[in-house]
């Protein structure tokens, strides 16, 4: 089974890597991973174009996700949103759990911003987006579920374009010895289109062997490398299948 994708625009953000030209340089260098400090999360993208009253609620991770989404949306009005994050706002959830353990009062704002669709909700408020929103946590399946979700939504026929946003940050330190989690903060958005020349294919092949658990992060870097022209294809093993992404 081969599916085709039309990517109209893409944008990615990691500390020190903001523009597509910087990502192309990284992809051409052949470096396997982006070097990003795990603790603390050092810098955040400038989102001063957002209204201050909305911006004040954005965590560093939310700023990264919002930034790439904003770059891709440009002047787009209504598009369905597909957000994919393995752990979401793990630091907020951790802080709330800690407050429960210490029997402290919970912050209502932090609680409302800790849920998995919080960042997508903030974007929909900021951009007046009333189209449907899907928020996924792909576990070991990486970027594939969100790509399939976007293709499914576009095939339903109501929308010409859809916005995909992938984002994750390192887990709070306490978890890192048991669950390694993402190595650094990384966000990437794709504006996918129903029509236009396909520039990516996603092919599924049966895989009899055990599926490897791959976090979204490593697949996302593969995807960015293909988008930035540093590789022609990527091969992922997940959910009992092999997935081959090719440009």
């Amino acid at each position, binding site marked *: 089974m081969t599916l085709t994708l039309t990517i109209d625009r893409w944008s990615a953000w990691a500390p020190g890597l903001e523009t597509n030209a910087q990502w192309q340089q990284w992809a051409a260098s052949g470096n396997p991973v982006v070097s990003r400090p795990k603790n603390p999360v050092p810098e955040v993208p400038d989102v001063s174009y957002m209204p*201050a*009253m909305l*911006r*004040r*609620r954005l965590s560093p991770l939310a700023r990264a996700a919002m930034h790439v989404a904003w770059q891709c949306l440009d002047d787009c009005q209504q598009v369905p949103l597909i957000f994919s994050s393995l752990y979401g706002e793990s630091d907020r959830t951790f802080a709330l759990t800690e407050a429960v353990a210490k029997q402290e*009062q*919970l*912050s*209502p*704002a932090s609680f*409302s911003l800790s849920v998995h669709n919080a960042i997508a909700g903030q974007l929909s408020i900021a951009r007046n987006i009333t189209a449907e929103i899907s928020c996924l946590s792909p576990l070991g399946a990486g970027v594939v579920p969100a790509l399939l979700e976007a293709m499914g939504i576009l095939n339903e026929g109501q929308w010409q374009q859809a916005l995909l946003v992938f984002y994750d940050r390192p887990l709070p330190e306490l978890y890192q010895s048991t669950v390694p989690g993402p190595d650094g903060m990384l966000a990437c958005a794709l504006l996918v289109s129903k029509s236009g020349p396909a520039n990516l294919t996603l092919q599924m092949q049966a895989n009899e062997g055990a599926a490897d658990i791959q976090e979204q992060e490593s697949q996302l870097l593969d995807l960015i490398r293909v988008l930035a022209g540093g590789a022609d294809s990527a091969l992922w093993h997940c959910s009992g299948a092999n997935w081959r992404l090719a440009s």
Partner: protein
Amino acid sequence: MVELENELKRMIVDTLNLEDISIEEIDSEAPLFGDGLGLDSIDALELGVAMQNNYGIKLNSESEETKKHFASVRNLALLVQQSREK
């Protein structure tokens, strides 16, 4: 009273991450919600928790009285003053 009002303004700015607003810009008599400072219902809940943590004042989110107390910094200051006099 001015001192208490400034203390409350500082609490509002810090609790709600109003990074672009200085306490001098907040009018003690202006409405906090809607037209004035432009705060919303999540801010109201957050301020409720801050009032309890900082001043030991527990406000019922359903009551009409609470709306009155939260109308402005001046009203919040009066509430704190009354609770101290008790």
